[in-house]
């Protein structure tokens, strides 16, 4: 019975496994969507790239995927970051203000000019977002604040900061090359998808090929024991929050590029809640420890599919949040093992009664 001598295959718990329910949910949602909206699955090759609702969903999901990846790591350390929406707005504001852009006609040739070089503007935006994450991380790991309170500070203040940067205005961006991030295509697929995919791959690599995955889980499950075992729990926690800020910054670039403007008030609004939901839908527990990056990506796709569906089938705008909440409720019920057991026993009991006269 106790075969301690038998070498069992070493399973890796992060990244994979337990994905069947999130995947099933996504497929179910797409199926319903396709029934209501037959055009959904229709893909078309036009002007050298793919067009279609599915591509559209993927493209629009990219910012949420990015933020969800950062959020997954934070939640795995038993933390939470509710400031990501505000950080998205800050990054978008910085990018918007620094790029701005005017159309200059010189010798009859129209060319776009940005206020600062575009790479500099993007680096400043993402760098500031990283600093925001760093601030959160220091508050949590160094000062010892509760994560939800520590990040609440920036959640509230961040929108104000974004407003200050944009001067309270919606900044419109007129610099053509910048639009490639949120609207462009590369080899037939949206550029934003490549960005989200690259961050996912890098993170996946980091958690499975370095000890990051082990350390983050150890911290999330038992921070004291992790520290006694030599895990640099403070440093890793700070880095995880900084990374979460970084993903929010990149998401801010995509969002501002996609809508060609920076709106301190509305960019990334309530994105923190969508991200937390995506992580939860993907099977990562809010109590920390075990996490699944692929699950969070699927979770983000579920949410975007839902949002797109609601718009596509013409749910009146005044009820669409209620519809979304209902669907999320049902999905969470389906994914709850307790609820499934309850349903199963409720189904079995009448069967037993008829089986035993």
């Amino acid at each position, binding site marked *: 019975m106790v075969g301690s001598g038998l070498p069992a295959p070493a399973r890796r718990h992060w990244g994979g496994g337990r994905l069947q329910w999130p995947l099933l949910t996504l497929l179910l949602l797409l199926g319903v969507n396709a029934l209501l909206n037959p055009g959904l699955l229709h893909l078309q090759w036009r002007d050298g790239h793919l067009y279609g609702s599915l591509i559209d969903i993927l493209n629009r999901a990219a910012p949420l995927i990015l933020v969800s990846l950062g959020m997954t790591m934070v939640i795995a350390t038993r933390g939470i970051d509710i400031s990501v929406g505000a950080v998205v707005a800050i990054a978008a504001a910085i990018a918007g203000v620094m790029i701005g852009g005017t159309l200059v006609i010189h010798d009859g040739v129209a060319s776009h000019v940005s206020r600062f070089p575009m790479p500099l503007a993007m680096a400043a935006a993402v760098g500031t977002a990283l600093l925001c994450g760093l601030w959160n991380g220091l508050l949590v790991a160094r000062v010892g604040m509760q994560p939800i309170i520590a990040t609440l500070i920036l959640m509230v203040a961040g929108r104000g900061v974004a407003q200050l940067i944009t001067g309270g205005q919606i900044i419109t961006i007129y610099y053509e090359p910048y639009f490639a991030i949120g609207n462009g295509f590369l080899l037939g697929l949206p550029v934003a998808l490549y960005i989200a995919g690259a961050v996912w791959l890098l993170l996946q690599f980091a958690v499975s090929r370095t000890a990051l995955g082990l350390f983050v889980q150890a911290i999330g499950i038992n921070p004291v024991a992790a520290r006694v*075992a030599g895990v640099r729990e403070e440093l890793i926690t700070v880095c995880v929050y900084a990374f979460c800020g970084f993903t929010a910054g990149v998401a801010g670039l995509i969002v501002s590029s996609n809508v060609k403007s920076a709106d301190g008030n509305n960019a990334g609004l309530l994105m923190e809640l969508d991200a937390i939901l995506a992580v939860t839908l993907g099977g990562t527990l809010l109590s920390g420890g075990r996490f699944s990056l692929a699950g969070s990506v699927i979770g983000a796709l579920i949410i975007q599919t839902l949002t797109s569906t609601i718009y596509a089938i013409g749910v009146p705008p005044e009820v669409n949040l209620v519809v979304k909440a209902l669907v999320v409720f049902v999905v969470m019920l389906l994914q709850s093992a307790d609820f499934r057991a309850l349903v199963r026993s409720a189904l079995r009991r009448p069967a037993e009664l008829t089986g035993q006269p």
Partner: protein
Amino acid sequence: MSSPLPLLHARGVRKRFPGVQALAGVDLCLRAGEIHALMGQNGAGKSTLIKVLTGVYPPDQGEVLLDGRPLRARTPLEAQQSGISTVYQEVNLCPNLSVAENIFAGRYPRRGWQGGWAIDWQRMAVQARQLLARLHLDIDVTSLLSEFPLAVRQLVAIARALGTESRVLILDEPTSSLDDDEVGRLFTVMRQMRDDGLAILFVTHFLDQVYAVSDRITVLRNGGLVGEYATATLQAADLVTAMVGRSVCLDRQATAAARGDIARRTPALEARSLGRRGRIRPTDLSLCAGEIVGVGGLLGSGRTELARLLFGLDRADHGELLLAGSRTVLDSPLDAIRHGLAFCPEDRKGEGIVAELSVSDNIILALQSRQGIWRHLSSPRQAEIAQRFIDLLEIKVADRDTAVGQLSGGNQQKVVLARWLAISPRVLILDEPTRGIDIAAKQEIMDEIRRLAGQGLAVLFISSEIDEVARLSDRITVLRDRRKIGELPGGSDEHAVYRMIAAGS
């Protein structure tokens, strides 16, 4: 006054968990008016049997009879209503509530309209006093629980479990956090309850306690029944043999005390008036390679505080630390690990294991920390290291990927020990490595410590069980009131340690 008819009778109980046959046909006969000890090593099936008796687990086979009728309890609450009360090892009481509130938490007596919307505080106090009177305990039930010593809290936990109609009381290691006087007090109450006709099932690891209080003993081993004995006719050595399945030498084993050359070597670890305000006063300590230095002292004497200073978990604000002869300031546990130090903390669940991670991940955690985040141990390498220590320490686990939280206490402790052996330390600090684990696992761990010292490891062995310290150590440092009061040579017996503590100098 034990009656021949069993009050609670388990017959041929079998219970299987994935990968483990937890119970393989166990009988237990509990009579009214007896104290019945349930003995066995960790993993013998004691906890599973208790959970079957109290309705937590249904048995796969066999039956539990109460008064000759099958017990139909499916939850601990139903078991309690049928008259079977249980007090678990971890006392889940709230120190910031009153005694009466603790006793009635979740089922406060109500008064007022329609069964009551308000708590009937007076009735609660009266009933609490009645329940405690059954335990022969007369205290102010409106005082906060935190005002009472542990033994009284243990009795309050029993009162909480004990309904007025209880006939069977199951005590799962009630004495593990009590001192000798408190144990004596608990036993007095247990005897009184027995004489009142209650059937008491008593689980403990302490042999002397079994002999002090029990009438009969049932021994389990590896999920099977070894036998039921009358305590008066069973020798201690035979009891241990029954539990372990082979004879164990309980006597003092020859330590390598003859290592006279140790004193002339540079100590692997030396503390020179190392201290921290409010934790431990400046203390001198030296520890050589191949030496086991015991730290003896009562609870609160500063044992753990000393270990935390030596391992860099707390910063010293006085004195200096020398490792292999050179002055060192340890900023963090990682620092200590890099200097070849290892530390098994006292609180295994809180500071030792990472419960939801696998055995394998737990074993490699410290080694991976020392290697840093980039030099990742490959899966085959992890598996190899984990398997080596699983075999070396005979950790009983079906699969390296089992979550360590599912293991028994002794095996969890071995996993923590394996974690530290994996970094091949020069100095090993063990804080209560044998707490709450059974006698055979204890012996195995102590043998392992001795073997490691023989290979040149310096071991600091901290334990509240002074006889263990005396048996194992080459030298004994004695602490009292957060300072070192002296040192005794190896071979001193426990009474010498107690005398030194009592004398206080």
